[in-house]
């Protein structure tokens, strides 16, 4: 029986109906049963592990960590309050936003997990496939449905992919994890070329979406820039084509060595043409009708997203122009932390979760509650988590910016550093993670403190600094203009520096410039690298551009120069 559609209430978010809610509750009961079978011994730890991972539960260095899915980064204010409640009730009063737009709770008890999942289900949330060798949370543009340069709102197709990949019967025991990102803007803000599959959507002649498909990108031990598999995938074949790619991967991806099990290694081993031939053979052989994505289905999903009801706010731009004249700090923040909106008089606001000396991506329960309230007040009750570990309010009237900024500033969330050197991405590192070689957080804090002067940061300009505590590269160090990689040097924590990485349309992989140094030496070396840039740059040249023009040599000399 088709269900009576529930009218969508939350802006920007797919609204569940009774069927979706029942499914989540069943899934919670399934996990409760699995936990009981583990405790009774019916499941070995080895057998239980992938099952708990498929529900987002990791065993870290000191405790279980629960990673909750935030599909394509979108949260309602109510959902944010649920996360605050979980942090307060079951964790140590804080959470951590991840580079897949999810949130992690670091101090969770195994026996509490089914109850937490139940609370999440009540808020139409889950932790399904936030870990494990399956299709992970699909990421998207943090400015989706808002950005002025957008051609197509990618969240509708991201939701279609979320549903299709949820407990997929064939692709839940893949050789390795599988990450998909989707963008609907000319400017790639999702690092599409660093994903197992990156989708760039545009509008086709018939008004329906068409996708450019990139495959085989990724960071980790073997960083690879994805290659274009298809230029013109029609919307109706989106699911069928992804099925074909995943089948080829599931059948032929390596399983003998987890470090060579990602799809990028298969694409490299076969070569792009042979890989494409395999995918096409699969695509031609399959029952395309079964997987056809009809426009009615796309529109039915779209109808579950409530749209903001914008007001005529065109006069607010002039008002804002006056306000920034009188308050230079506010002007600076508006300059770095806002993004152009489709509607006149509105903008998107990025709230930095990287205060001076802070831990990138960490957020307290109180801050979560505050952000939920601000979302209700200023942005139709909608929030977005970015893959750069910040929070976005998508649709803010420009005449509300000043008051918003004042509240944020009073609560440690007003840092004007988005896109700057202290807008650092860092993995949890050895403070939490059993895989890490070094702690990422203390060096991130020292660098954040070192460059905390807003004047200095603006002098330096756009600079992406990414930190990973080990070769697995969760902090995306290869994609940073400057990257830091934690290593183990004869039992001591040490750090290598990479230069020249970039995640956008002109993606590049950062290269290691030399041997590892101690934490403090690394901080000093980065300061000298930045000084070298300031001396050597041509007018208007960003750090990455100077880096590409000059190569690594002058920066390497500076990094290893003794004072």
């Amino acid at each position, binding site marked *: *029986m*088709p*269900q009576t*559609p529930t009218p969508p209430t939350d802006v920007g978010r797919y609204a569940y*109906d009774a*069927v979706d809610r*029942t*499914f989540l509750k*069943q*899934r919670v*009961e*399934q996990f409760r*049963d*699995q936990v009981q*079978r583990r405790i009774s011994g*019916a*499941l070995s730890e080895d*057998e239980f592990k*992938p*099952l708990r991972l498929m529900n987002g539960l990791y065993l870290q260095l000191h405790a279980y960590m629960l990673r909750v899915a935030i599909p394509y980064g979108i949260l309602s204010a109510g959902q944010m309050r649920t996360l605050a409640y979980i942090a307060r009730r079951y964790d140590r009063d804080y959470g951590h936003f991840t580079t897949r737009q999810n949130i992690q709770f670091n101090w969770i008890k195994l026996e509490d997990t089914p109850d937490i999942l139940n609370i999440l289900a009540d808020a139409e949330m889950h932790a399904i496939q936030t870990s494990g*060798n399956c299709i992970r949370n699909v990421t998207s543009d943090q400015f989706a449905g808002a950005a002025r340069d957008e051609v197509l709102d990618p969240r509708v197709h991201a939701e*279609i992919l979320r*549903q*299709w*990949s*949820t*407990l*997929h*019967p*064939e*692709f*839940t*025991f*893949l050789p390795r994890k599988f990450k998909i990102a989707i963008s609907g803007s000319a400017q790639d803000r999702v690092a599409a070329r660093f994903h197992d599959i990156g989708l760039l959507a545009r509008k086709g002649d018939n008004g329906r979406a068409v996708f450019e498909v990139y495959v085989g990108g990724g960071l980790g031990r073997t960083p690879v820039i994805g290659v274009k598999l298809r230029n013109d995938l029609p919307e109706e074949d989106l*699911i069928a084509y992804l099925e074909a790619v995943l*089948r080829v991967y*599931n*059948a032929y991806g390596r*399983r003998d060595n987890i470090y060579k099990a990602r799809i990028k290694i298969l694409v490299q081993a076969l070569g792009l043409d042979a890989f494409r031939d395999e995918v096409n053979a699969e695509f031609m*052989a*399959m*029952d395309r009708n*079964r*997987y056809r994505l009809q426009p009615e*289905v796309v529109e*039915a*999903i779209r109808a579950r997203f409530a749209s903001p009801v914008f007001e005529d706010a065109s006069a607010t731009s002039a008002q804002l122009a006056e306000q920034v004249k009188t308050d230079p700090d506010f002007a600076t923040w508006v300059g770095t932390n806002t993004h152009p909106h489709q509607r006149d008089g509105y903008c998107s606001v990025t709230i930095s979760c990287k205060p001076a000396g802070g831990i990138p991506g960490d957020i307290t329960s109180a801050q979560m509650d505050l952000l939920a309230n601000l979302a209700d007040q200023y942005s139709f009750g909608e929030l977005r988590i970015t893959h750069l570990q910040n929070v976005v309010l998508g649709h803010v009237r420009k005449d509300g910016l000043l008051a918003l900024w004042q509240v944020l500033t009073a609560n440690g969330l007003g840092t004007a550093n988005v896109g700057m050197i202290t807008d650092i991405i860092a993995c949890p590192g050895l403070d939490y993670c059993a895989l890490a070689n070094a702690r990422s957080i203390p060096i991130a804090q020292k660098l954040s403190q070192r460059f905390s002067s807003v004047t200095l940061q603006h002098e330096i300009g756009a600079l992406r600094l990414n930190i990973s505590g080990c070769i697995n590269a969760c902090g995306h160090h290869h994609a940073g203009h400057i990257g830091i990689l934690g290593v183990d040097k004869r039992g001591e924590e040490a750090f290598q520096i990479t230069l020249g990485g970039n995640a956008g349309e002109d993606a590049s992989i950062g290269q290691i410039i030399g041997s590892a140094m101690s934490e403090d030496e690394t901080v000093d070396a980065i300061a000298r690298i930045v000084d070298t840039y300031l001396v050597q740059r041509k007018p208007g040249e960003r750090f990455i551009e100077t880096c590409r023009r000059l190569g690594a040599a002058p920066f390497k000399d500076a990094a290893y120069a003794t004072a």
Partner: protein
Amino acid sequence: MPLLENAQIIEDSWTLVPDDQPLPDGDILVPLSRLAEGLGRNGKGRLGVVLKADERVDALREALPRLDLVSLSFSIFRDGRAFTQARSLREHLHFAGAVRVTGHFLPDQYEFLLRCGVTQFVIPEQSDLAVWKKAHELVTLAYQPSVLNERQEGFAFRRFLSP
């Protein structure tokens, strides 16, 4: 070991023939390398093939109409190649016989395997059938089509799973 089909333990009439032994009468399962030999054994029983995880389903294309069983295996439950093999047998090659899985797989994978077209499950001795039954009944909805062509729920790709 017990053979599970349609939620019941059934009699296993099939004999697995090792590489070095002559083919007996009756229902026999042979490795892919002995397929031709098996097909040549006229009218003495049914024939099935054991397909290893790294063997291509395509190798059975010609022979499938004359096979009654394809047996897939899990060396360890995390190795999910059998899911794709099963689904390819059903969807690409339209195989209508029995698809069996052996080896190390979990009740938690039972529903996925059913949806990929597997019909027979060789499960460990002393298995508690209630656990398998529960694994099948706990979740009643899926978000994507499968080769079972389950009844559409009415929204998007959602399907009702059969009880």
